[in-house]
């Protein structure tokens, strides 16, 4: 019996060569999803009937000579804060009115379906894409496939767990301060937060209106590019959507780092006190490998990177508080998980001037980033590279949300500036947990981000490492 494909690109080839059908692929992945719900707990809802119907349609289209592109017949999970017409949406919360989800697909889901994607299930998350899992809310808590006592990260915890655990090949996450890249780093997969406005966020429960993104998560940068190609594009239903042409996301992928100029902002990103030695050494080793493959490393600086962290948090929590205020100030307040409620409560303590000052800081940080990138072809750099998270995935035990708030982060600044940033696996800690690094690009220059990330994945195989749990799954759930 054949094994299952490891990546979307591979599955797309298998589907076209007749090595596998979409129904067989979907059935095998459904079996994996059900088999791991008591351990990984990645899903809030596994949509068996919808998925199989989608798979049958995809196979019928192939048989009729209809090919809608590389996502046709590929099962994809959707974070359960994004609306789907054939399943409820919960945002992992007892607070969200069920009526909110009784609507058509979110714009991005609509695009995926039009491309022949098999919508597979609704993935778990941190409540309202913030907070920390709270067993009292009645939802399962997704686990890290590399070690079940550890978090897969958040808030796209279910997507990280499901893709990292080999249950599905790709899924949607959302990201307001690192919720795609954090789980990608902790679970040993790839995940991109593209340029703000590149992908519509219509149909997603907001967290921070001016920071929110819906982004793809998959094993490889190439798979993320395949997904983003379909997801991207102007949407008049999203006030933040940018009306600009969508480039060929895979167009610059040539597997080469020769001539690539990489900016390395060592101050802050490689020097903050909570940065684990393992993480620092791993990302430095990745930079060395890229230099050995022909890239040039250039020291750059973003002087107010730490202030950016504060501006992102004030912006996110203020915008979230505005959305949640009616529920936080009513009897529904008791229905939030305690960590979520506590996180949102802080929004009441920021003033209007605090919020506007955070917005006044954004152009300063943007200019510092522009200076760091410089001018292409005139001594400027193509991308920046920094660690994704300061440590490997922490254990559930001993979680201290206030300590978490105090710690330095490397992902929020790219939400604040809106720059595209992908997290890709860069190695493992001494304890065997995945470590990720971010490749950050110029505005709307996702193709260069993908080129560099893909080229790194051509010279390394960190992204192909499979956790033991997924190796067991591969033995148990093979297609008929």
């Amino acid at each position, binding site marked *: 019996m054949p094994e299952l494909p490891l990546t979307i690109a591979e599955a797309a080839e298998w589907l076209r060569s007749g090595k596998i059908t979409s129904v067989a692929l979907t059935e095998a992945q459904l079996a994996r999803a059900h088999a791991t719900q008591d351990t990984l707990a990645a899903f809030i809802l596994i949509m068996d009937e919808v998925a199989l119907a989608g798979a049958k349609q995809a196979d019928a289209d192939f048989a009729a000579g209809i090919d809608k592109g590389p996502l046709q017949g590929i099962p994809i999970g959707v974070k359960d804060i994004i609306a789907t017409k054939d399943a409820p949406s919960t945002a992992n919360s007892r607070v969200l009115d069920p009526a909110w989800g009784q609507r058509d697909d979110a714009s991005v889901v609509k695009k995926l379906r039009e491309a022949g994607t098999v919508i597979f299930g609704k993935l778990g998350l941190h409540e309202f894409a913030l907070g920390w899992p709270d067993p009292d809310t009645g939802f399962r808590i997704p686990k890290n496939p590399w070690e079940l006592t550890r978090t897969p990260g958040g808030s796209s915890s279910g997507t990280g767990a499901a893709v990292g655990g080999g249950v599905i090949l790709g899924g949607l996450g959302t990201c307001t301060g690192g919720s795609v890249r954090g789980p990608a780093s902790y679970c040993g997969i790839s995940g991109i937060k593209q340029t703000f406005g590149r992908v519509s966020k219509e149909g997603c429960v907001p967290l921070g209106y001016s920071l929110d993104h819906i982004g793809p998560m998959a094993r490889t940068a190439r798979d993320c590019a395949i997904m983003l190609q379909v997801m991207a594009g102007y949407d008049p239903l999203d*006030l933040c959507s940018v009306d600009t042409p969508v480039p060929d996301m895979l167009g610059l992928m040539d597997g080469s780092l020769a001539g690539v100029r990489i900016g390395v902002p060592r101050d802050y990103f490689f020097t903050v006190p909570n940065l684990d030695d393992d993480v620092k050494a791993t990302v430095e080793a990745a930079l060395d490998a890229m230099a050995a493959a022909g890239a040039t490393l250039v020291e750059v600086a973003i002087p107010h990177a730490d202030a950016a962290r*504060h501006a992102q948090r004030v912006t996110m929590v203020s915008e979230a508080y505005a959305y949640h205020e009616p529920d936080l100030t009513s009897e529904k*307040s008791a229905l939030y998980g305690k960590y979520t409620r*506590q996180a949102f*409560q802080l929004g*009441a303590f920021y003033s209007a001037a605090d919020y506007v000052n*955070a917005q006044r800081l*954004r*152009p300063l940080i943007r200019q510092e980033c522009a200076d760091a990138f410089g001018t292409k072809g005139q001594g400027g750099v193509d991308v920046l590279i920094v660690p994704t998270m300061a440590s490997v995935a922490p254990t559930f035990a001993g979680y201290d949300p*206030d300590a978490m708030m105090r710690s330095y982060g490397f992902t929020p600044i790219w939400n604040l500036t809106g720059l595209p940033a992908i997290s890709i696996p860069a190695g493992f800690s001494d304890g065997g947990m995945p470590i990720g690094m971010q490749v950050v690009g110029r505005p709307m220059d996702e193709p260069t981000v993908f080129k560099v990330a893909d080229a790194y994945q051509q010279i390394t195989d960190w992204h192909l490492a499979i956790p033991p749990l997924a190796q067991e799954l591969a033995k148990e759930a093979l297609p008929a």
Partner: protein
Amino acid sequence: MSDTTDAAAQIDLVLAKTGMPVTPEERERLIRVYPMIAEWTGALRLPETRYAEPALIYPATFDR
């Protein structure tokens, strides 16, 4: 007044204004983290941004 008393007064003022219900445990936490909030918001007030325009744009159009 001590810093803790100041923080408690500020917390109670905001809670009264918003009508946001909190448990005693949550009120204690808010008092504990209030200095951190003040530190963060203080960090947003930079000489470099004294005359900066905020990143707030409203498109004056009927199209969206």
